């Protein structure tokens, strides 16, 4: 087994990001997320429309309901492809105080 290229064997790269679009055409609850430290804040280099669609990881007790995410929510997740960072998965929402 090549541990650098085997899902789960190495490089669990977790991240925190901000939801910028929740209108998922596939209707499975994906969101476009700008991930801090991985995606630049410079929207001319990386417009919101180009951000990857992060796949939701749902609770096994309630797997058919879509998460009530909103744009501006901070979410935590991981990359399925480790440091390549092209396939983000969202694990949960980080609640915060109102601004």
């Amino acid at each position, binding site marked *: 087994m090549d541990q650098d290229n085997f899902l789960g064997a190495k490089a669990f790269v977790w991240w925190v990001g901000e939801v910028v679009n929740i209108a998922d055409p596939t209707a499975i609850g994906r969101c476009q997320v700008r991930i801090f430290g991985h995606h*630049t804040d410079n929207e001319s280099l990386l417009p919101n429309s180009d951000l990857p*669609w992060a796949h939701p990881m749902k609770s096994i007790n309630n797997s058919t309901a879509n998460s009530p995410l909103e744009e501006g929510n901070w979410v935590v997740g991981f990359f399925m492809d480790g440091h390549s960072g092209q396939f983000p998965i969202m694990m949960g929402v980080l609640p915060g105080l109102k601004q």
Partner: protein
Amino acid sequence: MASNNSAASNAQLKYATDYDLTSIVLFTAAANDSIELKDKMVELNYFEDVYSPSISGKLVVSDAIGLLNLASINGTEFLKIIFRKTNDSSITISRTFRVFSVTDKTLSINNNFENYTINFCSEEFLISQQYRISKSYKNKEISDIIADILNTFLKVGVSGSKSVYVESTRGKYDFILPNKKIFETINWLSTYAQPTSGGSGTGNGTGADMLFYENVQGYHFNSLQSLYKQNSVMNLYYNPKNIRPNQKLIDLDSQLRNAMKFEVLNYIDTLGAISKGTFSNRLISLDILAKKKTVTDYNYNDYFKNGKSLNGSPVTNNYKNRYDKYLFDAPPQNMEAGTLRMVTSNSKQKELPYVKQNSDMINSIANDIFVENYIPNRVGQIALANYTRIKLTIPGNSDLCVGLAINFMALGISAIPDSKSKKDPDPYFSGKYIITAIRHIITNISYITVLELAKDSNTQNYSGVNNADNNWKAKVAGGQS
């Protein structure tokens, strides 16, 4: 490019290791801007490596005037080096580097002089270490993305800068550069890239053998397959003087082509090759959107039949194991492959019936990254490219650089023939090689070049076996008797 040095073009050479070191100039903020270091040089080392994005080097200096303080050297200087072989036809290596450290500083016992090493590299390497890039590219070929990175972020390939040679790649990708350093980003992209003109690999596409490197000509983004297609620029020999009795002194032209030293770095290593997935490897890819699992097997035999190799004959024979399997076969049904990878895939997501019905949905699906093609092929191809590696020390040759192909002839092991005949070449060490690393070493008295050469194939097939023969089966049954 290296030329075939004729005796006439070697007219200015007295010895094979002669050289012309025009200058080593240090550009610094103090000491009138520039200092000539040629007379203080003990040894100059210049390195290129086909697996490294930058040229680097070391200059060992013997200093009796306290230059480090006098010139206010602090590791940010520029160093210009100009050297070549003495003969007129040789290429001049003339490059400006950035100093990045001073090491190995030692003081003489009487405090009259000090020795130290000035380490230098191409300036692009420092820039690459200084900055990270995060940018999106939609529906772009990887070769276009790499050309854009080189132009936009490294400022090379533009007017007045170093040259850039980018081989075209197939497929259009949606990538978000993941905030890696610049050369890390290019190397990361290289792993996905499949050359337009490469030979067939496993599956339905080409291999994935793109390399990014710098040599004296500039920056290169090339496939191994395209390097293999080049003509050899030079013939080199390893012809020790003591195995040809009564031989006259070798002339200068022959000395230039004759290796002074020959070392084997990698040779027959079937266990190592199996571990690396050279002959066979398996990829499990998971598509979480389509909920699809795909298994892809790489087969060295399929690749070798369809791809381009340096010498035409494979590095192994047709021996089968006790499961009636060749080295390159997929594992038996009841076992898994020894070299196994598992990654995320988005293969053909845009062709899913549910997605095709909705144009909005298609726009939210990223282009295929072809993991089922690039990973199994690249694993096999890169390992195979280094199957046989040798190191040669030759009289200095500034015409050679990494990425070029040369022919090498080593003599086989056999009894010394009579004085009139020559020994036969070794069919497995001799052949066409790619220069994967080069080191030019200039001292006060000589110039030598150390080459690391690699090849993926042999000039002659190994003997095969008749796997169906019962006598053979009995001999290799693996029992204790």
